[in-house]
């Protein structure tokens, strides 16, 4: 075994400590909480805010279906998961990246719509104003994946979910590539695996999705793929009902398409 120069060790240790520190910092800055959303109107599009432990946070703005951030709903609480930054928009600290989930239960107490106030502004031009659209969506959709060519191999597609979420307007973005792939390779079998998520909130509480949701999600996705034309394919439904604790990425369905 060759020796390692002390200077290299120092560099490696420094890098490691930086990584650890960054990770720790990121962990410190990670925030997960449930609160009423707040609409703060501006001279252009509204900002969406939320308050937690005395601090007001900025979640995002209204744009359109093409945006990564789609605003929540008054009348419902929102689960906010993300990383706090030092930036400020609309007079509130920005959480970025952010993932929100509209909680299904009605919360009539969540009704705070604030009118335009002097000094509260976006500070940037929104990609999609409330009126003229510019003739396009706010964001360009991702390019379609390349058409698969033989020999085909099994491929897995992920369908992400909001907390307690089921199929919605975003689902086609995830399902369409899977459907296209399957229509080309004519699979022998499709495995659909549903997962149930759990999120540790910043106050220590554990928020768990309802039991059975893994199966419901998998069943629903299989039904949708059949309904979209894969009605002569054999589906295998798998459900992991034991909650997986972690971030939004664990609330999912996996679609494995097998040639």
């Amino acid at each position: 075994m060759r020796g390692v120069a002390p200077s290299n060790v120092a560099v490696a240790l420094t890098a490691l400590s930086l990584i650890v520190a960054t990770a720790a910092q990121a962990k410190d800055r990670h925030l997960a909480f449930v609160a009423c959303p707040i609409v703060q109107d501006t001279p252009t599009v509204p900002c969406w805010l939320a308050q937690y432990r005395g601090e007001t946070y900025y979640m995002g703005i209204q744009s359109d279906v093409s945006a990564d951030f789609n605003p929540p709903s008054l009348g419902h609480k929102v689960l906010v998961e993300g990383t706090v930054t030092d930036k400020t928009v609309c007079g509130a600290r920005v959480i970025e990246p952010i993932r929100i989930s509209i909680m299904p239960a009605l919360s009539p107490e969540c009704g705070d719509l604030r009118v335009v106030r002097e000094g509260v502004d976006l500070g940037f031009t929104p990609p999609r104003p409330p009126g003229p659209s510019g003739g396009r969506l706010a964001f360009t959709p991702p390019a379609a994946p390349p058409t698969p060519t033989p020999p085909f191999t099994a491929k897995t597609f992920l369908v992400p979910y909001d907390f307690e979420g089921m199929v919605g307007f975003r689902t086609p973005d995830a399902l369409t590539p899977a459907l296209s792939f399957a229509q080309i390779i004519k699979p022998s079998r499709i495995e659909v695996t549903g997962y149930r998520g759990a999120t540790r909130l910043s106050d220590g509480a554990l928020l768990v999705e309802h039991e059975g949701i893994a199966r419901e999600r998998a069943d629903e996705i299989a039904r949708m793929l059949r309904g979209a034309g894969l009605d002569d394919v054999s589906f295998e439904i798998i459900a992991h009902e034991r909650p997986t604790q972690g971030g939004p990425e664990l609330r999912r369905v996996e679609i494995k398409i097998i040639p």
Partner: protein
Amino acid sequence: MGGAGTRGMLGRGRAEWGVFGRWTRVSAVALLAAGIVAISGLRGQPPGAVTPDGRTAAEQERSDWWAPGSGEALPALAVYKNASGHVGVLNTEGPVQTKGHPFFEPIGSNGRACVSCHQPADGMGLSLRSINERWRDSGGTDPIFAMNDGANCPTLAPGKASSHSLLLKRGLFRIALPWPPRNAQGKPVAPEFDIEVVRDPGGCNTDPIYGLNGENPTISVYRRPRVVANMSYVTHDGFGVGPFVGKTGEPALRDPDTGKPLNMNMMADARTVTLKAQMADAARDHLMIVGRLTPDQAARIEAFERQVYVAQVDMGAGGSLIEPDGPPGMGPFNLRDGAKGVLGNNTTRWVIPVGDAWTSAKVGETAQQRAMRDSILRGQKIFHFRTFWIRDSMHLNTVGLGNPTKRTCSTCHGMHMTGMDTVNGWMDIGTTNLPWAKEAPRNPWQTEDELMPLFRITCSRSAQPHPYLGRVIYTQDPGRALISGRCNDVGTIVMQQFRGLSARAPYFSNGSAQTIRELVDFYDRRYNVQLSEQEKADLGNFLAAL
């Protein structure tokens, strides 16, 4: 048909437009203007007054009714008077010989033809005015009053106005749908909710034969006939049509012949999505056809439906909408030539473009024409630019815009040239769901009884609650939910095109807005738009001009 003279005169003149194109329009507009004067002269006369041709004003007024089997030719451009001016029915393939044509012949067993409920004079829809004229003139025997769906319930006494009150007061036909719901393949769908009948003034939902507790449990809802024109827009396969419905994520219905996903914007509940399937549904349920349409009949009906365009052609004294240098979004000729199935906007490709045609006065333009054109331009701007908070509307606020969302009329009514929804879509704006649906006030002094049925929907615990209405919803018409069985579809209705509005009042699927002004008032109330009187008038004129 008593109106042959009127329609023939105008029709022959305008029939030439389709042959000679736009160059002949100036002279044709002059002919049209003459026609306007001739017809307008009848307005304001008492119904019994005798006109120069020996007919009463009332007879002249109803002369545009197209009876099944009349056998007359429908001109290349037929023009009919309405309260705002005239509507034009453009047949792009030239005059239609209706004799023997399955759209115009009474091919069912109840005397109706397709044209019975898709009248040219009513913009290929059916106006309440026509319905009441037919009731008066036929003593209630016109085929549109057939008991199967032209009465509140088939078991009621024929010939009595009270048996047909939903048709006579709201322009509504009975739509009988199975419970539990069935999908497009006829297979039962397990609904996410229970349904109870809370109020049943028509008597059909509690009827032992036709009702919810009958041998074949059925829900009766009451809806307006939709416009059969501009179908290349209605059935487009452009923007937003894909394997999944962009708003709900659900699989889109597919053409059984090609397997391709289809636009689902034709019927109020999107239960059928091809013209072929729709006409089979209508022939069975509305015409009571014995057997089925033949392939030749179906092909001829579809061919007719795909070539006919409808739009207002003038605003009476307010002037023409189809001058050669007129606004590019007005009139049936522009509809014929417009881009189909594309999303409009308010900068580059307006939902309803008006261009610069009316920004300055034209030679010979009257003060009335100028005033109307200015009003339409203002209304068009309100439609495209006036923001307001759109709130608690299922399948609108739930599709990534947030609730509420600060947007404009053109956000939802976004299809270029028609103001329809471009993507597959149905939504609940409150026309049928309480608390927004129109209901007769209940108090000790009321004289009006509510006409519409009322259902209580209870969403099951295993389903997610409706995001805005919770688990218990009161509705006059569950809309798409009677097909999908989904709790969050309760009260959702597929939006209609904006064309020919002046010819076919009342509006909304349940006829709850008797006039365009009532339609505007609904939105103003529902979304707190805070339109001024002038803005309401301008928006109304803009809509009336479409």
